[in-house]
């Protein structure tokens, strides 16, 4: 059986997730035994000439041109994997949606604003069908490999629908809240093996929220730890704003 042809694409992003893939180390050699990489801007100059089986897409959709391009990729690829927060939930690009589009356009491009086509930030699945998601900013390498293995075998990959706290407890980390630090672990879906907290950082919610985050109970928690609602809202907005459209111009 010939190896599936895999193409990596990027949209609005920092290309950090590509770097994560390029930095797989030894596992990269094993991965390359399974797939034929035909396009990957960060590591090679060859192009796929629109012949690929699996498209692995980084970045969010932020222009009308992006919409056309991702639709074309979707039409060509048998399987589409969205990877990295920008692609899976909009990520930091979603912060743009906090502001009216025209206002933010002017703020960024000033007098040249009219030359730039921009739309409210969208995650890839808000535009085309996505078969697999690898959440995270950046992606957690072991999860990317799990997803790739699932895709190659045609099996579903289920992103855990429980919170990062579950994995964090299993890793026996001291709770950030006990240190007096606000952390988004309780509402963020797991799958990263509480990577950030294991390394002394907080959870920024880069994987998106669990499906049933118990909003009222969360409010109680904030109340108890005397955390202002705005703090947590701002933290959530950092990655999770693309779920909402930009507010109307006032």
């Amino acid at each position, binding site marked *: 059986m010939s190896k599936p042809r895999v193409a990596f694409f990027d949209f609005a992003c920092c290309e950090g997730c590509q770097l994560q893939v390029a930095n797989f180390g030894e596992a990269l050699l094993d991965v390359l035994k399974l797939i034929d990489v035909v396009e990957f801007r960060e590591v090679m100059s060859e192009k796929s000439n629109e012949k690929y089986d699996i498209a692995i897409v980084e970045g969010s959709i932020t222009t009308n041109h992006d919409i056309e391009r991702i639709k074309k990729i979707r039409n060509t690829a048998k399987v589409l994997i969205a990877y990295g927060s920008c692609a899976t939930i909009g990520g930091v690009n979603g912060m743009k949606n906090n502001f009216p589009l025209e206002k933010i356009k002017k703020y960024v491009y000033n007098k040249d604003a009219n030359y730039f086509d921009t739309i409210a930030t969208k995650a890839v699945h808000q535009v085309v069908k996505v078969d697999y998601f690898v959440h995270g900013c950046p992606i957690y390498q072991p999860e990317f490999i799990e997803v790739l293995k699932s895709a190659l*075998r045609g*099996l*579903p990959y*289920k992103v855990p629908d429980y919170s990062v706290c579950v994995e964090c407890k299993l890793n026996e980390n001291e709770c950030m809240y006990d240190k007096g630090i606000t952390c988004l672990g309780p509402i963020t879906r797991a799958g990263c093996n509480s990577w950030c907290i294991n390394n002394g950082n907080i959870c920024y919610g880069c994987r998106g929220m669990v499906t049933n985050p118990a909003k009222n109970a969360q409010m109680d928690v904030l109340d108890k730890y005397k955390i202002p609602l705005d703090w947590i809202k701002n933290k959530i907005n950092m990655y999770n704003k693309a779920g909402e459209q930009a507010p109307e111009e006032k």
Partner: protein
Amino acid sequence: MKRVDLKESEYIVKPATIIKAKPMTALEKFFEIELDSGASLDHEPGQFVMVSIPGAGDAPISVSSSPTKRSSFDLVVRNAGKLTGVMHRLNAGDKIDIRGPFGRGFPIRILEGNDLLFVAGGLGIVPLRSLINFVIDNRRDFGRVNILLGCKTPSDMLFGDEVEQWGQRLDVNFNCTVDKSDPDWKGNVGLITSLIPGVNLDAEKTFGVVVGPPVMYKFVIKELLNKDIPARQILVSLERHMKCGVGKCGHCQIGNYYCCQDGPVFTYEEIKDNIEAL
């Protein structure tokens, strides 16, 4: 951390071969399976096995054939998850692994000599078929037999040919209904509960055996109680999520019962005060 082979474990699998496979509906596929050891599965009607495919995991599947069929057994698999998705790609000659049979099946020794009223809704026919065929194969050991069958539409009906044969038998009373008819359907239309009042039965010596989707039980049981069938003579088979099959993992717990060990077959008497059961 050291790792050694274990010769004894609840997680040892028995290699098996699919000897027949055919799609039944858009979602269900039928499999006939033989253990590679040549041994019989030796299950009780109503028990289940864990089907295992290395790399895809394992999942509980009811045995659908009667233990009177010795050399092989039948499974009906709905494509609803990782393992069952892989199962649907398999065909005759392919290998799978089996753990079990597990659980408490239907109490055949207690049912013997009594009248039986089978009520199967939707996929409920799959586990119930193991008991119905067992009873038909040992017809003289049982009293009157009534079979009531219900499904969503005529095209959802499983085991159509076999069901037709049950209907033609003189020693079985058979009736079925669909929720939604199609132009070719000549039978009843309506919920399965509507068939129960019309059944002529001797409540004292009748066992009601009910298997169907979770929503069905309350309504069917109510009708059976209306017929004066005692709670201890109403048998149900409950569906729960199972991971281990050996009463440890906790997923299938119904109150204090482990569905995989204490069930899946329960009498209504056993579960009527258990708020997690129905």
